[in-house]
């Protein structure tokens, strides 16, 4: 089977998995506890890395853009530029990539191990649908928590940018934040929250599908995990491009 057919089959399998997960979400039993547990593991558990990533990304953005803007005499626009980059692009994409590494790999490895140790078969034999019990709660938890984590990353990034502009370049804090307030529109924020919903679906579905289709023992678990992280990361970046363009058209943003 050549790579194109294999990829298409994988897209089909992943799409079917997502469809099955959402269809079964509304059938009893609904695993609410499992959803909250996953939201805690995925959302609260990722908070530290998101805070660190967000803060230093905002900081380095200021570090790189302030001198250039100053050259053109537009240094009072630093806050605007940093906030816009973060809210529209870097916040959603970096949060998604960090979560792919942390959460996507964990999901693929956990489900993969369950497959090779026959726990998935045991679950089915005991009358539980693994898609409902394992996949659906993870997808829901990701779809709920990733936009929240993105907002946290955006806010902390802007604070990081403000801290660098004040601390290193002596720019007044008020001036930085007023350019943020005046520059950012509701559409920017809306777009920045829609993106992580799509990214969450990508990360969750790819990781779950790779995990559940694990073959070949513990080596297979490693392969599935690597493959889940690589595939989801690439898909997030590719999807980001198309989403950015689609949002420009839908929300009538500059760049159309």
């Amino acid at each position: 089977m050549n790579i194109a057919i294999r990829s298409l089959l994988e897209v089909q399998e992943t799409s079917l998995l997502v469809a099955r997960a959402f269809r079964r979400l509304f059938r009893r039993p609904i695993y609410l506890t499992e959803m909250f547990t996953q939201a805690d593991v995925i959302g609260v558990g990722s908070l530290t890395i998101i805070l660190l990533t967000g803060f230093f990304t905002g900081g380095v953005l200021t570090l790189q853009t302030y001198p250039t803007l100053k050259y053109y005499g537009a240094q009072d626009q630093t806050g605007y530029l940093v906030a816009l980059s973060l809210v529209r692009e870097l916040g959603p994409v970096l949060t998604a990539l960090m979560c792919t590494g942390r959460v996507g790999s964990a999901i693929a490895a956990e489900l993969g191990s369950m497959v090779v140790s026959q726990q998935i078969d045991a679950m089915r034999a005991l009358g539980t649908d693994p898609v409902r019990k394992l996949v659906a709660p993870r997808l829901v938890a990701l779809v709920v928590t990733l936009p929240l984590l993105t907002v946290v990353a955006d806010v902390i990034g802007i604070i990081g940018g403000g801290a660098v502009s004040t601390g290193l370049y002596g720019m007044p804090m008020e001036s930085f934040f007023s350019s943020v307030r005046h520059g950012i529109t509701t559409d920017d924020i809306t777009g920045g929250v829609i993106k992580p919903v799509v990214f969450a679906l990508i990360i969750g579905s790819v990781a779950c599908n790779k995990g559940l289709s694990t073959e070949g023992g513990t080596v297979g678990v490693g392969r599935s995990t690597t493959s889940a992280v690589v595939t989801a990361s690439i898909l997030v970046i590719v999807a980001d491009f198309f989403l950015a363009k689609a949002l420009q058209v839908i929300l009538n943003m500059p760049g159309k």
Partner: protein
Amino acid sequence: MASTELETQQRMDAAIEGVDNRVSEAAAESTFQEIEDDARAIPAIEFQHVTLGFGDRNVLDDLSFKVMKGETKIILGGSGTGKSTTIKLVLGLLKPDEGRVFVNGEDVTDYGEYEMMRVRKNIGMIFQEGALFDSLSVYENVAYRLHEQGVPEDEAEQEVRRMLRFVNLEDAIDKMPAELSGGMRRRVGIARALVGAPQIVMFDEPTAGLDPPTARTICELAIKLRDLEDVSSMFVTHEMNNVEYLTSEYAAVNDEGEVIFEEEGQKLCLINTKIMMIRDGHIIFSGTDEQLTKTDDPYIKRFLRGK
């Protein structure tokens, strides 16, 4: 004939008639039971010309057999001959490419996952390595099916303790699977599979890699299920001592209410245990242990003796 003799004769005839009546009542009762027993004539599991392939290779090729109610079918065969695949087909974990699979007379071949869930409620499955859920304690593992069904916690705990007593592991109730030995994991797996009193139980190499006494304990559990609980089962193995235990011993309850294991012989001959041997996806032997030992097939002979 004197009148007294005549009366005596009449009384005797009446008495005999009375006895005859009682016999015919008993016969009617037994006939009634036989009607009930007709349900037993429906096989617990039936395969009709089942074929399944992975890639280019047919793992099972035109496999047909029946497991009757209360019967234990030992499935023998080397590694990779399709033994485990066979029991996965019963549970619907795999679907055949061709042929039909029946469970309790119900054709489950084309059932989707949702319909299969109902069928699986009546089947217990014991996996090779136990397949316990690592993140759950022994209690939660055994109570899994009950928790899923929303059974109240008090009832669930009673049932879990009863099942763990059955496998002699009540002390391990609060342990995590990682803290258990291989044999204990298998026994917890058995307890988990038996919750809800399934009438069909699948054993997938339950004694592989275990020390002889633990393996013996697991075989005793299978014998107890067969003889005391009227469970139909498929017992996949490639270990000949398992075959010997299952085909030559039966469980009974003595006067003190204890379960004892006795060898078949003068008192009783076991007819509820059959052996089926699979090689390259085909059934190469089907019958009793006596027939197996008398076979002339060189492969089976080598399999039995190991040389």
